[in-house]
């Protein structure tokens, strides 16, 4: 395993003694489909502390977006949170009515979405949407809100914001729109910013700029950042801790460094193997994960990764017994019966 990664810029370490801003315990979200119930989020537990940059990594269909929407109570119907608790600065969010949730959204939790092209109302100017966003939570005049918006836009790198605030979304490029959306997400200074695949829809060259911006903003303001992504490169570059999600569960929760140096779960390992670096790779075969992700509407008794796992494929235990989270010596929490066998050490 040779993804040597020596961080030049050390992210702010999470201080364990600080009370978590956001504490999620045993969160479960279901979608009632005609074909049966899809358990999209299954028993997810994690903490986010002030200034932390947490990554949630998974493939499409792993439940990571459903998780993000569950946190802000915007799971699209027919989906809903069916269990667990989300505690924001001690305030319970699960079971809160929509009005209560509305006060949390934007003010306590900011959201940045995947597709900036579709994330702004095309019929209204950037300014009016921005002002609206500010005035939902802050009792300020339209004029003040507009001024605040201009400042924020300048902060995220929009040139001449006083003029461009009157423009419509389609007059902005994709990258610029994502900057606007980031500015709107932090406009009410939320404690936590959730970014759901914020760069997937952008061109490669723009991606980097937007990521830099997100990091910078959160650093300056001290917001916690939850980065939801499938791209391990982003995780490596941006985040300090990682949760690897598979089939609705966190299969490995650890620090970014530990994940890249000593991935504990076979799935994490396989994912890392799939990452190819254009600078170093050569023509030839690459390691692949066989098979395809499981159907989320069935909840098998064993480890959901077992059929694709180099170890689990041949272990009867993996097919019958669900692995419970275990904490390893590295501090990683892993759901795997054989995690210790790979890394060679158990706490």
């Amino acid at each position, binding site marked *: 395993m040779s993804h040597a990664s020596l961080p030049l810029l050390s992210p702010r370490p999470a201080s364990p003694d600080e009370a978590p801003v956001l504490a999620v315990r045993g969160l479960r*979200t279901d*979608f009632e*489909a*005609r074909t049966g119930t*899809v358990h*999209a*989020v299954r028993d997810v537990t994690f903490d986010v502390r002030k200034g932390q940059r947490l990554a949630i990594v998974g493939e*499409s*269909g792993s*439940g990571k*977006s*459903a998780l993000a929407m569950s946190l802000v109570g915007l799971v*699209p119907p*027919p*989906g809903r949170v069916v269990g667990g608790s989300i505690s924001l600065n001690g305030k319970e969010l699960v079971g809160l009515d929509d009005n209560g949730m509305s006060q949390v959204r934007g003010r306590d939790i900011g959201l940045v979405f995947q597709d900036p092209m579709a994330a702004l109302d095309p019929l209204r100017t950037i300014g009016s949407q921005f002002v609206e966003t500010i005035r939902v939570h802050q009792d300020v005049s339209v004029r003040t809100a507009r001024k605040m918006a201009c400042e924020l836009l300048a902060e995220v790198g929009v040139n001449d914001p006083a003029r461009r605030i009157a423009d419509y979304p389609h007059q902005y490029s994709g990258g610029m729109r994502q900057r606007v959306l980031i500015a709107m997400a932090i406009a009410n200074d939320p404690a936590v910013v959730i970014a759901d695949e914020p760069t997937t829809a952008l061109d490669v060259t723009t991606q980097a700029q937007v990521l830099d911006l997100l990091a910078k903003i959160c650093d300056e303001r001290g917001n916690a950042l939850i980065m939801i992504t499938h791209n391990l490169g982003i995780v490596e570059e941006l985040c300090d801790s990682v949760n690897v999600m598979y089939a609705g569960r966190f299969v490995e929760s650890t620090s970014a460094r530990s994940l890249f140096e000593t991935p504990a779960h076979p799935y994490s390992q396989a994912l890392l193997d799939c990452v190819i670096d254009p600078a170093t790779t050569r023509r030839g075969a690459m390691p692949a994960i066989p098979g395809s992700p499981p159907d*989320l*509407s069935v909840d098998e008794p064993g480890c959901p990764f077992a059929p694709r796992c180099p170890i689990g494929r041949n272990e009867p235990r993996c097919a019958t017994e669900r692995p419970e989270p275990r904490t390893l010596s590295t501090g990683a929490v892993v759901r795997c019966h054989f995690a210790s066998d790979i890394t060679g050490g158990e706490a």
Partner: protein
Amino acid sequence: MTAVAVTPASPARSRPIRSFLKRDAALTLTLSLLAALILLTLIGPFLWRVAPDDINLSAVLQPPSVAHPMGTDDTGRDVLARFLAGGRTSMLAGLGIALIGAVVGCVTALLAGSMRGWVDTVFTWLTNSILCFPAILLAMAIAMALQPGVTAAVIGLSLHSFPWYMRTLRGEVMRLYGQDFIRSTTALGAHPGRVLFRHVFPHLVPIMILQMAAVFGAAVLSLAALGFLGLGAQPPTAEWGEMITEGQQFFLTGQWWIAGFPGLGLLVAVTLTTLIADRAREVLDPRGEFTQAK
């Protein structure tokens, strides 16, 4: 996103209709009601063996009774018998209009959509020119130019229905030609004819069925409207619209059954069609791209 796992990842319209029927009680119910109504008007005359044209001057304007379940009109004709005969006229003409429009519209759409260029321009101009007349007005003018009657009404309404098919189908043909699976077939070296008939045409069928349902409903109503204005079916041919006209003056003197039942028949038939088309649209066309006016 997880929601993706909920909605079918594949185009839903390729699913067999049968499986939907099994699960969709409402659709099954409405479909069987409409089928029952159509069947009733088609075989009704064999069950209710009273000739719709038989007059009986000694039993005029009788309210519904066992002998005349829908009463009699001002010449003593049995309203039920006329209701059944009128329904048959309406249904057959409606089906005819839907079919003629579908065939002509589909052929022109395929021609215009696949050949493009001046063929497309001419057809589009033609259909635009026809569509700027309201259907009923055009049908009236046709009825005026020909002999008023069911035939003229069918011709007029078909003339107005085919551009609707043509417009929707042409758009779909154009869209399909931009689709990768059509491009991939072309890339395989398939003859344009093969692409057209094996790959493009089958995709038009569900849209055509949807459109036919809509056109059928509208056609039945328009036909009745023409009959009401005296330009559709001519007396003594029984047709629901014509029956309403004949019964109109009796409405006010309390003999509601002469115009009441045919109106009810129209209402039920067209409403059922609309409900079915609605439901079918959700099944066949979940994106709602082919929502058609009228």
